[in-house]
């Protein structure tokens, strides 16, 4: 700009011939730039991916886990030839902040958005994405509306609540078939927050439809912030059910199992149809041998995928004290999906990126399931829950059989026989 303003003033006027020559040169350059060379230049521009996660507020621990997944994955993706730059934003576990941050990222040049762990915030961001015509890749959020509301720019590589609940419950049939033992009764202990109550409603609605071989004889709700679960466990013990089903968070999962050991609650198994806690590193560390054989039915890393092993190794090296769990895996995959679409689109134009996302077909991935492909509504249907059981101090895939690293242990050995 400064050159253009100085030259005319120093030359003190310009001849008609000089003007024509300059204009012709300019026109030539513009024409050339409008063709293929510009397209190549754009393709070489890294994707500006706006990452929206709850890194503070009540979901901070999970938001930070997701962020670690993105950060560890970035180096891997660069080695694989992808070109991505992160624009990080904190949603503060608040949908309104999430919406504002999404608008800010787009204003500052984000070509695509990724996030945002919790359903309410993700819905708010999906609204912004739709309004601005910028694609959004959902790492984790189970709210069905995200892919049932007709959004054109939202793509979700995570099961909806319905898929999650049904997938988790259906696996019980496979679990008992694999074990060769079918229990008849269960007691359900669950947190009474919105997640726990949602799961309870889902379980109550699906149990009769899925024709499961057992009955839930007692349902015990508790506050996730409970300091002591001795009464809840005493009640569960009195129910004399064959096995214990749980819907937990982390701290209460530790309290629950510790109290079961103290009260000598010997049961065939402690299983969750799909909740956090029992696969967490802190759970394994706090309970040691008593954490063994607890199992959770959730989407998980596919041990047969080389990329999963690579991600887990890198994660362990970078964060030896943190859990490499589904938050890490799905966030990595969301970044992979975004980077892959950018590479195929050869452009940073949101419309081209959206079209490329629609045509996604990624067979080499980290989570269990088929190739990542999106339906017309933006949902990836090739997602499966796995049975993850704590064996030898590590969450281990035991079902489905094609991804299993070990056999499902059921009934579990009694607590008192564990030395």
């Amino acid at each position, binding site marked *: 700009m400064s050159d253009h303003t100085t030259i005319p003033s120093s030359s003190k006027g310009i001849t008609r011939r000089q003007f024509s020559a300059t204009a012709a040169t300019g026109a030539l350059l513009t024409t050339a730039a409008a063709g293929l060379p510009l397209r190549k230049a754009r393709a070489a521009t890294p994707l500006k991916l706006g990452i929206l996660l709850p890194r503070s507020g009540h979901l901070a621990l999970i938001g930070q886990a997701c962020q670690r997944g993105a950060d560890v994955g970035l180096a891997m993706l660069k080695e694989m030839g992808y070109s991505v730059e992160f624009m990080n934003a904190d949603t503060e576990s608040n949908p309104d902040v999430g919406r504002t941050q999404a608008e800010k990222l787009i204003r500052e040049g984000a070509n695509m958005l990724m996030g945002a762990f919790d359903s309410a915030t993700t819905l708010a961001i999906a609204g912004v994405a739709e309004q601005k015509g910028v694609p959004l890749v959902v790492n984790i959020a189970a709210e069905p509306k995200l892919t049932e509301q007709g959004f054109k720019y939202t793509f979700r590589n995570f099961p909806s609540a319905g898929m999650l609940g049904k997938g988790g419950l259906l696996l019980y049939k496979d679990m008992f078939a694999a074990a060769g033992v079918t229990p008849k009764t269960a007691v359900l202990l669950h947190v009474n927050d919105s997640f726990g109550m949602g799961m309870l409603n889902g379980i109550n609605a699906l149990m009769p439809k899925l024709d499961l071989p057992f009955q839930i004889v007692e349902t015990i709700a508790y*506050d996730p912030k409970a*300091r002591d679960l001795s*009464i809840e466990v*005493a009640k569960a013990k*009195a129910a004399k059910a064959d096995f214990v089903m749980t819907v937990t968070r982390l701290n209460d999962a530790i309290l629950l199992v510790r109290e079961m050991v*103290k009260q000598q609650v010997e049961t065939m198994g402690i299983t969750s149809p799909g909740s956090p806690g029992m696969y967490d590193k802190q759970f394994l560390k706090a309970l040691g041998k008593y954490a063994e054989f607890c199992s959770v039915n959730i989407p998980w890393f596919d041990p047969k995928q080389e990329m999963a092993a690579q991600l887990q190794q890198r994660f362990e090296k970078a964060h030896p004290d943190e859990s490499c769990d589904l938050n890490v895996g799905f966030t990595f995959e969301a970044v992979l999906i975004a980077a892959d679409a950018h590479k195929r689109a050869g452009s940073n134009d949101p419309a081209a990126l959206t079209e490329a996302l629609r045509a996604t077909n990624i067979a080499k991935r980290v989570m269990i399931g088929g190739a990542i492909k999106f339906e017309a509504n933006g949902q990836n249907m090739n997602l499966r829950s796995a049975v993850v059981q704590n064996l030898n101090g590590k969450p281990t895939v035991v079902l489905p059989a094609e991804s299993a690293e070990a056999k499902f242990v059921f009934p579990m050995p009694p607590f008192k026989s564990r030395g």
Partner: protein
Amino acid sequence: MDATFFLNVTSSGLLTGLVYGLMALGLSVIFGVMRVVNFAHGDLMVVAMYAAFLLFTKLGIQPVPALPLVAGGLFVVGYLLQRVLINRFLGATEHIQFLLLLSVAIIITNVVLMVFGPDARNIQLDASFESYSVGPLVLDKVRVIAAITAGGVAALLWAFFRYTTTGTAIRACADNPVGARVVGLDVEKLYAVTFGIGAACVGAAGCLLLLLVDVHPHLSSDYTLLGFIIVILGGLGSLGGALLGGILVGLSEALSGVLIAPSLKSMFSFGLLILVLLLRPQGILGKKP
């Protein structure tokens, strides 16, 4: 649900109640002598829990052997807090004292948050997973250890106030501060010692509670509230009342959890509080003003 089940639940509630009682003792001692309501009570307990946590993780000292160290440390903290800060506000109106101690509570919570972060911490002992079987009764080992220790500390405190010269002098200050000054007692110093003793009780309770619950910075408000419920139930200023209040809260939580719903158990402590306030506002063992 059979009799064994109720017996197990009742014994668990009773044992937990004893530890609750010890925690509330400190609050009751401070109010009984100085007429100051310590709103930083739960925060001092959280500090004690973190101190016990550090002694265990860094030096391998288990919470029960660490109890004298932590209680001693908290005595010093309480003594200095009273001497340096609270003493200046003893003549002030109640709402000024309330704001002062609330400010102290907020500062403690945030300092703990800055130092230890928001995560819950716990310690694992072999005893954490063990229980005693007495016939059909299954008693949680750490709960038994905590309850016995709480009973011991409460007995020591009672003996201190009953049989030592300092204890008698503190009781004199509580009964008649003017008279205590007239006979030449250093009331300010005795108040500081009292606050120190109250804080030491909280320190002891913190060590024992670490055996039962995970510690995190925001635990303090829960326990301040619980402490108030207990001392109001038992009678503000009464040592026996604090223990009785603790046992009543422990039992009501346990039995309401079984008979109604575990998620509603805290509601019954508040229900009991309202009932006592209606029928006997001075508390079960409290004296009429």
